[in-house]
């Protein structure tokens, strides 16, 4: 019995080792995906500037105090501070997750010991970034706005948490005795959640405005938009690669040769496949967005023209990709293995699974070599930031360029494989 079992196992092992697709799926795919996820979470390559959150800074005051605030913010390792004008609209358009506006008179307030006024513009769709940002902003603002504000904030916090009066007084006296004890308390690289929606913001003199997302600025809507767009793009790639795979299916069954023996064959076969694939892709996208609109409240009707044009571009790019793979692979099994590896990797790199806003800059750059990233940028632009056709023109153009390039490769591969008679 044991001998027979070993014989069966040895046979299966031999078949497995000879099956390149099975090897790819079993060993290469997990390593690739683990690498992508590890990199996304900043746990490889020594950390470096992983997960630095972009914060825009606009100084309408120009005082020594506002400049000192900028220096303090720039010293935060978790923040990537950029000085820009018109920061509100930039956050509104999705260029950055948040921005600080220093209004005129900030320096005078600090000098006079008054609670200064600052404005924090936020994109509520980028929830993770907001938490990291808050954790880093608190100590900086406490330092920059003076001990009186920090003391006031501590006092309000203790009151809110129900500390007895005696304990609060003791804490205040300790604060007065060691005015620097709070420095760094929130840790320079802190990523602890902190909620600006409560008393904290007011105590720090922050006026918080959520400026992105329009009337749909709920987390459900933001999450829904990303989830629906991410899944739509990934499943589109799988679906359209399968459509492209009908070329191989027809080659195996002999129908492709039969069609090639008709006078109107040639390019019409590939063009017909492309049309079919794009049509299936568009239908798939329509279905998912209707579902997203009904179930998650994704605002699919906010910019219908932009959504349609972008979806056509996405479907064309994905169809080109699918056909390209289909003519490169010799068998359907090969196609299944290679497409799974490529699509899962592209989806992870391109932001179909998690927002690219939370990953390091170099990861975002690599991600934009995939069509997923451009598709996701466009969808997020339309569904979350309410961008119209002009706002997503670059995404559409890049996707159409991908469609042309992959379509050309597919045609070249087709001619080499099916049109050559030598």
């Amino acid at each position: 019995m044991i001998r027979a079992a070993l014989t069966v196992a040895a046979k299966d092992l031999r078949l497995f080792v000879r099956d390149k697709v099975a090897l790819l799926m079993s060993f290469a795919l997990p390593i690739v995906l683990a690498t992508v996820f590890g990199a996304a979470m900043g746990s490889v390559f020594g950390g470096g500037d992983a997960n630095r959150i972009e914060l825009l800074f606009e100084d309408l005051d120009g005082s020594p105090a506002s400049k000192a605030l900028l220096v303090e913010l720039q010293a935060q390792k978790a923040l990537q501070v950029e000085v820009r004008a018109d920061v509100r609209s930039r956050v509104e358009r999705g260029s950055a997750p948040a921005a600080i506006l220093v209004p005129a008179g900030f320096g005078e307030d600090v000098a006079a010991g008054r609670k200064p006024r600052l404005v924090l513009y936020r994109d509520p769709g980028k929830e993770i970034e907001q938490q990291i940002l808050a954790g880093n902003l608190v100590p900086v603002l406490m330092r920059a706005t003076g001990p009186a504000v920090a003391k006031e904030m501590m006092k309000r916090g203790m009151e809110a948490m129900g500390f007895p009066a005696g304990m609060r007084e003791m804490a205040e006296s300790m604060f007065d005795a060691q005015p620097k004890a709070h420095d760094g308390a929130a840790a320079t690289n802190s990523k602890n959640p902190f909620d600006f929606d409560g008393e904290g913001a007011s105590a720090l003199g922050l006026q918080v405005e959520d400026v992105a997302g329009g009337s749909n600025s709920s987390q459900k809507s933001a999450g829904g938009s990303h989830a629906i767009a991410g899944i739509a793009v990934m499943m589109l790639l799988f679906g359209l690669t399968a459509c492209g795979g009908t070329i191989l299916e027809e080659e195996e069954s002999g129908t492709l040769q039969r069609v090639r023996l008709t006078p109107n064959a040639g390019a019409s076969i590939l063009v017909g496949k492309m049309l079919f694939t794009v049509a299936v892709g568009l239908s798939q996208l329509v279905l998912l967005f209707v579902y997203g609109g009904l179930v998650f409240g994704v605002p699919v009707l906010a910019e219908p023209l932009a959504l349609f044009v972008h979806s056509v571009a996405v479907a064309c790019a994905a169809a080109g990709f699918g056909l390209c793979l289909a003519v490169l692979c010799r068998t359907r099994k090969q196609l299944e293995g290679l497409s799974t590896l490529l699509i899962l990797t592209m989806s992870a790199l391109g932001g179909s699974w998690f927002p690219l806003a939370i990953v390091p800059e170099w990861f975002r750059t690599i991600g934009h070599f995939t069509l997923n990233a451009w598709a996701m940028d466009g969808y997020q632009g339309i569904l979350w930031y309410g961008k119209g056709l002009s706002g997503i023109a670059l995404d559409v153009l890049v996707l159409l360029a991908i469609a042309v390039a992959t379509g050309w490769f597919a045609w070249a591969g087709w001619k080499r494989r099916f049109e050559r008679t030598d």
Partner: protein
Amino acid sequence: MPPMDSDSAIEIRDLVKSFGAARAVAGLSLTVRRGESLGFLGPNGAGKTTTIRILSTLMAPTSGSVSVLGLDPVRGSAELRGRIGVVPQEIALYDGLTARENLEFFGRMHGLDRARLQESVGRALDEAGLADRAGDRVETYSGGMKRRLNIVAALLHAPELVFLDEPTVGIDPQSRNHVFELVDRLRAAGTTLVYTTHQLGEVERLCDRIVILDRGRTIAEGSFEGLRRRVGGARGGRGRLEVGARADEALAALRAAGIEARFDEELPDLEQVFLTLTGHALRDEADG
């Protein structure tokens, strides 16, 4: 290539097709007359499939000259494809489509207009004996039904020349008989046929002339009778004498004249027995 004889459907001169160092076709020369039914025979690897791929525009020769219906299959491929029909060995149909949808698709790809398409599809369904199952998906068909549909799908555009590559593989005698009748009708209509098979009895039944290929060359060519005499003659005299019911008297007379003779009663072959017992009508239940 010299000008083709207007009576020729196919003219091949010194055809060579190499794949690397291997020569699939090694200097083949052949002429097929218009309206002729040619049996194209040979063992596996003899070069039959390669030759047919060249003749049907799917492959270019390495050297030599080929003319099909007066056209060069490489340079005139688009026109030639509209004038030839190829019945592939495999069932090259879309299982998820009905018989009618399959035929309409291939007809449209051949550029048939609406009226001619409807007429051709209707005729093809009748010829395949599938008119009453035209709306059923091909995946529900028996092997014989698929084979018959596979054949008529290549005839929708009324080709002048048809290549049939083992068109009866894996079907029952009734369907095979139906295919024979279909081929007979093509012959009667003057269509040139090139018929490839390993079922030699089919060639004997359906072909005017036979070409036997081996290792990429013609090793024998002629009518069935001619080839039989050539091989039979080398083995000594065997013949057939029709004597009616008086076989015993005829045998005695021959022996009395010093002629060595033997009486073998002619019995039906197994296919004849089978068809007599089960009938000639098509059996179109799905395989199982």
